[in-house]
């Protein structure tokens, strides 16, 4: 029978092997089905050695005192995944046409498409949820001192992810193309333009010209759905890799383990 490498469970949770005389390996269709599943997983594992990587990623040691604050990073990631999935389905209906098509397609999604209002609402409110979670996660890292050596690079990647999240919020805001979206983008691009020396060129780049023009909306749409999500996904992978590689920190209120004297009997 094929055998998967066992996760390092405590001895009390491990299923004991069948005793001699009990119903063993040749027992019924349920056991057969179980074996088939293991065979498939084992077939893949023999050719990829993924189980080692999966165990390295998932069965990590965590410090004492790990608590609910440590879930904020995962929460942010799931907010991103929710945005990605709802965004893909919204893209099936959206038309980046500034001469009225964009507004009309959003109106159609909201009013006519089955569950359209719900999916659009998830995407719209989910963006705020993601921004709030990013800041809570950042605050947790800051107040727990988890940005210190050797995790500085992960903090830097996190700041880039924060900026990219802001870029997503900014570019996504224009897409409904109603009055609020239009004027907020005018104001936002002009705030970009107030950066000295590079500001005017930056705002020209965002608009695709010196005035809000025919390609501004499609430019924002491409940045919103193609450019930045790819960057976020890649940096998220690096962020997670470093978390798994370096481990998490104990909360600052955890006392250092008291070094007790070694007795002769123990040695």
């Amino acid at each position: 029978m094929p055998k998967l490498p066992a996760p390092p469970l405590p001895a009390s949770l491990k299923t004991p092997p069948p005793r001699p005389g009990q119903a063993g390996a040749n027992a019924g269709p349920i056991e057969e089905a179980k074996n088939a599943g293991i065979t498939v997983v084992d077939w893949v594992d023999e050719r990829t050695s993924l189980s080692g990587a999966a165990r390295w990623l998932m069965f990590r040691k965590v410090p004492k005192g790990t608590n609910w604050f440590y879930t904020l990073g995962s929460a942010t990631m799931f907010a991103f995944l929710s945005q990605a999935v709802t965004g893909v389905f919204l893209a099936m209906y959206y038309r980046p046409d500034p001469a009225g098509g964009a507004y009309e397609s959003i109106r159609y999604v909201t009013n006519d498409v089955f569950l359209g209002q719900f999916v659009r609402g998830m995407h719209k409110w989910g963006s705020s949820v993601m921004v709030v979670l990013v800041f809570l996660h950042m605050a947790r890292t800051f107040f727990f001192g988890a940005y210190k050596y050797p995790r500085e690079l992960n903090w830097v990647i996190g700041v880039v992810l924060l900026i990219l999240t802001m870029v997503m919020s900014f570019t996504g805001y224009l897409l409904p193309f109603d009055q609020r979206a239009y004027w907020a983008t005018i104001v936002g691009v002009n705030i970009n333009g107030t950066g000295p020396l590079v500001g005017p060129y930056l705002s020209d780049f965002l608009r695709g010209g010196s005035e809000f023009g025919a390609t501004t909306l499609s430019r924002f749409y491409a940045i919103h759905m193609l450019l930045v999500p790819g960057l976020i996904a890649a940096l998220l992978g690096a962020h997670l890799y470093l978390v798994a590689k370096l481990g998490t920190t104990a909360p600052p209120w955890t006392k250092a383990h008291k070094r007790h004297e070694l007795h002769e009997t123990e040695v």
Partner: protein
Amino acid sequence: MRPVPDKRDKHKSKYTLDRGIPGAFEGETITRRRFMTGTAHGAGAVAAASFALPALGFAFGPIFKSNPHRWEVVGNIYQFPDNNYVPVVITLQPNIGEAGKSTVYMRKFNPEIDTDAADVDSHTPYIAISSRCAHVGCPVRWVDASERFICPCHGGVYDLLGRRVGGPPVRPLDRFYTRVNGEDVEVGPRFSVNSQLRRFSPRDPGEPLDGIGQYMYPSRPGAQKL
């Protein structure tokens, strides 16, 4: 013990064979391995540049593109007084519907009040004030009773000539060139002015034009004055 050859020997030959490098051939100054590595890297760089450079040029091209000047008839010469503004709607960007339109406040040039505009008058037989606030670009409106342009977003206030009298804006309201064609009044490209109403090529809102501001916020190829 064998003598170890001194790598810093200054009489080093340029031929790989003389230097005892493995895989050396007579007359070669570089090993074949090194040559192939360099070739592969070079080919990779050429391949990457062949798609990256056009893509970057494509994305950044609009910054360096100069736009043709548009002239648009907004009314006739009898329609605009010289002491009050009449709003007209012009098209800044064709083909994108309402998003490409903007309100302009028009008035006839008045030598009594347009005294600051020394170098403006020859280009502007009619004064055309842009409704784009010089703070961050919200639309201002002309309030007749107080003779002020007022911005709804952050409280910018401008006087009859479009000069800032209150709020956060950093320079006066932009203007447009005008010209008279027969009995038609035409509005042309935009220009910006500083607090002395001197003409500058159009700047985005929020960019001051007094003192060092005109150098901190340079003019762009896509928006030049006439």
